[in-house]
Structure formats: structure tokens, C-alpha cells
């Protein structure tokens, strides 16, 4: 699995923005992860404690905001959320759908002390 390199990427991004803002310490990191994007679970927090050790991000808490997969039907226009199995439009059974949410995978913000 690739949680370790994901964690290292998060650290690089947090450090770069912390330095730009002259932070003494980073206390919190807010992540947005879509249901359809990379699989990232709580093991990231475990890796985090190792990779952030000795940096100004040490002991920062990671917050995960998980976004559901949301599809929009191109035939009837209705929007529906997918939690487990992929299904066609529940209103008109169409397969002509577009994905409007669920692929997010980014660092939204950090909380710092100056």
C-alpha cells in the first residue's frame, strides 16, 4: 500500500505552507478525501507520527473530511449518492451519468501557531 508516500506528500505540503506563513508549530491538518479517490485510512495517522517527528508538524492532528460519491443523471437530471455498490440512476435507471463529487484528494487547510 502507498500510505507512507501519501503521508510524506502531506508533510511536504504542510511544511511548505507553514514556512510561507512563518509558523512556529502546526497543530492541525485538514484533509478532504473522496470516496472514489485513493484508499486512505487511519494508518496515515500512524505513519504521520513517524514522518513528522522532529519537524514543526510533530504531534499535529490529521482531520479527514470524507466526501461521498455523487452522480448526476444526464437523462432525468436527478442526483444520487453512492455508498457501496455502483448503481444506475435510481429514478430512471439510466447509465448516462456523470460524477460530480467523490474524487477529492487534497489538503484543505492547516492550523498553525506563530
Amino acid at each position, binding site marked *: *500500500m*502507498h500510505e507512507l*508516500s*501519501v503521508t510524506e*506528500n*502531506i508533510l*511536504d*505540503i*504542510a511544511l511548505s*505552507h*507553514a514556512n510561507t*506563513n512563518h*509558523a*512556529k508549530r502546526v*497543530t492541525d491538518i485538514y*484533509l478532504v478525501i473522496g470516496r*472514489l*479517490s*485513493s*484508499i486512505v485510512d487511519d494508518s496515515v495517522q500512524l505513519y504521520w507520527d513517524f514522518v513528522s517527528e522532529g519537524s514543526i508538524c510533530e504531534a499535529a492532528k490529521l482531520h479527514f473530511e470524507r466526501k461521498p*460519491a455523487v*452522480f448526476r443523471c444526464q437523462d432525468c437530471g436527478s442526483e444520487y449518492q453512492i455508498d457501496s*455498490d*455502483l*448503481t*444506475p440512476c435510481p429514478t430512471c435507471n439510466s*447509465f*448516462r*451519468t*456523470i*460524477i460530480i463529487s467523490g*474524487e477529492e*484528494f*487534497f*489538503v*484543505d*487547510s*492547516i*492550523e*498553525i*501557531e*506563530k
Partner: protein
Amino acid sequence: MSAIRVPVVEKIFSANDRMAALNHRLLNQEHIYSINLMASPGAGKTSFILETIQHIGNEFKLGVIEGDTAPVTIDSDKVVAAGMPAVQINTGGDCHLDAAMLSDGLSRLPLSTLDLVIIENVGNLICPAAWDLGTHANILIASIPEGDDKPYKYPNIYRGLKVLIINKIDLTPYINFNMEYFRQGVELLNPGLVTFPVSCRTGEGFEAWIDWLRSQVLDQRSN
């Protein structure tokens, strides 16, 4: 001392994406068409590459980059034996290739002599999907024995595809694979995806795939 919330809004893979953009620019400068070939272990990636060389090797010069998690050269040896330059990248246990590894691989190929580069990613349906390499096409090989539920279980890899290859179709009579269910899952994730059913063993279906590939390589050559 005060706590301040700083907006970031940066993709977690942004460093990789920047590197991928450099790879893409280099490939365009060299007028090379490039493919990131992904699949599960055993879906037939190397066989597919070898069969493609058989069909198109007399028209185009093709280079291959083989990604493996172990320091073996089994796959690249086969490509070299088929008469094309190949380099092996050992990911050191990592589950995928990333853009920096591809950059290294490209530097070891004679790019100015090539028309087409195929990158055989590590056999895995999860991790390669997250790392853009900067190639012109992400192509997935799904094979009949893997089962018809893979789009439902691994949606992310189907999202970024330009082409889907369905391999081992000669095994269809022996395996309980519901093609309609499989295709419906693909359609939800990637509507209208270009799909080629093939068999590397019998050669069935290769003509259509090769026609598609030829037009892409010729377009890129004249760009």
C-alpha cells in the same frame, strides 16, 4: 501565541503531477506516443506488449519500461528478445510507478529513435491509479478470469482510462463472467470508454486495437 487557520487547497499528489507534466512535455518534444499500461498481476500485460510488438514492430520503433517491485529482468528480457529496447525499473517494494521513476526510465531509453513508449506498471488495481505518469493514455487490461465485478471494486482505476482492453476472451466459454454487468459498471465510471476485447493467445481482436494504436502514433509523429 495564537492559532491561525491557513487555507492550503493543494492536491496531495501535486509534486508528482508537476513531474508528470515534465514527462509529458519531453515525450511531446520527441514526438513519442506513450502508454501507461496497468492491470492486476497475471492479466497479461507482458504478453499484450509482446503481441503488440509482433503486429506493429515492423512499422514503428517501440521502447518499453518495465516496472517491478523486485530486482528481476524477466519481463524486460522478453522485450529485448523481441527486438525492442527495454529498461527495468525496480520500485524497491513500492506498489506503483510514479512520475519521477518514469523520468529516470525515459532517460535510459534512446528516445530520439522511438515512436512509441509503453510503460508496464506494477501489477495492481489500486495504487497505479493515483500516480499520474504524464503519458498520453492510461490503458487498463482487465482479463476474463479476474471476474466481472472489478469496476465495482476498483472504481478509481477505471475513471482515468482512455482505453480498456479485455484480455483472455478465448476463456469466456469456461468462466462465469457476466459481460453486461461488467460493462455497466465501466459505463457508469467512464461513459463511452473505447474498449478492445482481445486474446493474446489466439491473436483475436488485435486488428482493431492495432488500428487504433497506429492512428495515435501517426498523429503524434506529425505533431
